[in-house]
């Protein structure tokens, strides 16, 4: 295998694994946006906040990062429930929710600056080498490298996304949620309990932020403004994957990061973020055209059947 092919494979692999992390972050966002109608920017803050909380637990109590989930997951669940309860209490529209979550996103950065200082925090020197030493995968006479933490992101993303997908498809609870999404009033008339389901979905979405935050702090250094760097990829992945579709968001995040990385290998890296938004632009531009074409095809087919 030539060096160029190996470099491309390595780049695509790294992109795919990083995409898993962004897919994990996007999971909670797509669930809240798609099923509860809340485009929740605060979800990104909760992810970062969980990262900081994990940092404190690991460096303060020498807890294994995975065991910190026993604390951060319930904590984030409660925050998620309370946030949604607030929106419910003030009867916030989707637009109001968007503004409120964005305001919370900004406030959260300042709060984290005050609590943990605006300086960079890294857990790298606290983790033993099993987290930071690359795993070699032989490919011919050469090898590809993978960080254990990236494998961790892959496994957690797959487990959580597939579990969410399965629950949506195969449980009464998931079907109730989908019914609620289609028409909340009719669903309520048919016995779906809107408020408890809404609160639980919000709580579970926030709980996924705890898991994503743990991966984040193991993988990269933290600064209070870090969440701002994720907005582009996470929002684009959520939209491209289809709102409310966790698997779609994960696949979109993986493809986006693979494309961005491949671009940076051959072209000036400073343009790679534009690639993500370029893909979103193309998708948004083509969506109505595809819909019109599909509708015309269906119309013609119906006419032919009628004749």
């Amino acid at each position: 295998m030539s060096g160029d092919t190996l470099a491309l494979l390595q780049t695509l692999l790294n992109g795919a694994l990083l995409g898993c992390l962004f897919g994990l972050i996007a999971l909670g966002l797509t669930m809240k946006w798609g099923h509860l109608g809340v485009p929740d920017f605060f979800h990104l803050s909760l992810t970062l906040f969980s990262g900081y909380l994990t940092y404190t637990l690991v460096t303060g109590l020498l807890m294994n990062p995975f065991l910190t989930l026993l604390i951060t997951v319930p904590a984030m669940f409660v925050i998620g429930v309370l946030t949604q309860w607030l929106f419910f209490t003030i009867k916030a529209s989707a637009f109001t929710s968007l503004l409120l979550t964005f305001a919370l996103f900004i406030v959260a950065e300042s709060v984290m600056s005050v609590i943990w200082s605006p300086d960079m925090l890294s857990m790298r020197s606290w983790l033993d080498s099993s987290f930071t030493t690359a795993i070699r995968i032989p490919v011919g006479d050469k090898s590809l490298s993978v960080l254990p933490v990236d494998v961790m992101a892959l496994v957690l993303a797959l487990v959580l996304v597939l579990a969410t997908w399965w629950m949506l498809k195969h449980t009464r609870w998931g079907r109730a949620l989908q019914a609620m999404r289609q028409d909340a009033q009719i669903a309520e008339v048919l016995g779906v309990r809107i408020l408890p389901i809404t609160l639980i979905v919000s709580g579970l979405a926030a709980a996924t932020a705890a898991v994503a935050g743990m991966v984040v702090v193991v993988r990269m250094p933290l600064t209070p403004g870090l969440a701002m760097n994720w907005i582009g990829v996470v929002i684009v992945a959520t939209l491209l994957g289809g709102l409310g579709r966790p698997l779609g968001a994960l696949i979109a995040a993986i493809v986006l990061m693979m494309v961005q990385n491949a671009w940076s290998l051959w072209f000036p890296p400073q343009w790679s973020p534009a690639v993500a938004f370029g893909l979103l632009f193309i998708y948004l531009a083509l969506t109505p055209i595809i819909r019109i074409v599909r509708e015309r095809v269906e119309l013609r087919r119906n006419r032919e059947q009628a004749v």
Partner: protein
Amino acid sequence: MKNSKLTKLGLAAVAASAVFGLAACGGVTDPNAGSETTETAEAASLVAPIANMECAEGTEPTGEPIVVGGSMSLTGPLGGTGAVHDAVGNLMVEWINECGGIDGRPIEYTVLDDQSTPAQVTSNYERLLSEGVDLVVGPYAGAAALAGAGPVSAAGYAYPTATNGVPESLIGENHFPSWQIGGGATEGMWSLAAEDLATTLSQADNAPKTAFMATQKFPTTLSFAEAQKPAFEAAGIEVVDSVEYDMGTTDFTSIVTRMLAADADIVWIGAVGMDISNFQLAFDSLGYTPRNLFASLSGPAALASLGDAAEGILVSSLYEDNAPLNDTDIARYFTSAYLEVAKEKNLVPVIETQAAAGFGMWQILLTAVAEVGPDNAKIIEWLGTNEVETLAGPVKFDGYNGYGSDLNRVAQVQDGKRVIVSPEEFAGAKIRLN
């Protein structure tokens, strides 16, 4: 029904075993356990923080306060390093007041957060000037320094700056930079720093023959990179590939893949803030260790976060905690006081370029105030014709844009500690290249 329950149980078991399987993968160890790696403050006796002042310890300043205003990035992407400058400002004010103030008058420091946004910097200085502050100090980083220059210069105030990385953008005769990047040159203001680095590398044992350059799109680093390419070529170091990347980039694997392909003797990274930390992740990810690495303007926390991986990394420097620069009474007290503040505010307990430049900026302003009082016109006139003793050495302001001295230094992490390796007169150790 039974099958459905079994499926649920199976899924739960898979999820649980995945999590707990991963949990067993790695552990956590306290890097500080067993050894005293944290910097500790040595007791140092109180002296005046500026050369032309006697410290009247125990004398309470009683006169009307001299109010110094400043804008600082306390939040946003530059907040980490901004916190260092803010801590230094507060430390300096407390210190000078402990010494009885200047001419019996206490110093007061009013700082406004600019959220790392240049537009907010302009607004902050306009507000400070309208509130009638007596003096101002500059903000952190080049873009902010330029943003503040408009209102400050228009009001006729002296404008001392700490780390203005765009020295070629003219501020005027009221500009008094502490980190003298330009060194008095009139064109190619980063050329002296670039030439110093290229010469240092080319004259060392195992001198590099090839270089790979990766530069963040930030005014300071772009200026530096532009000067570095011809300086490398002139010193016989071929630049085999170069890339630029956006501020805020966190995934560098594709750039590092290009580095691997280029296999250069030295990797030159034009980075500010925490980039080096994210580069290290990409190095880990690809199992790559550059033979030599220069990480120009990395934040102290970013470099410290690398642990053992920081060994051998070269950085641009103004000051490091090694003799002869740290062998003065002022340096000893500053080190002692700053390390205490750093501990209190969760800052990296290291005195290096940022802390030293911030301290130097205050020294420049207050030395002039001690000479001519808090009169901006007189301060500008006095600083224009006199030399000021700062922590990093004597500085003068008689060159273009106030740059009058060459204070470019190169430091390296050796045996876990930052130390100046060039020029020889300030070096605490000899450069080590692979």
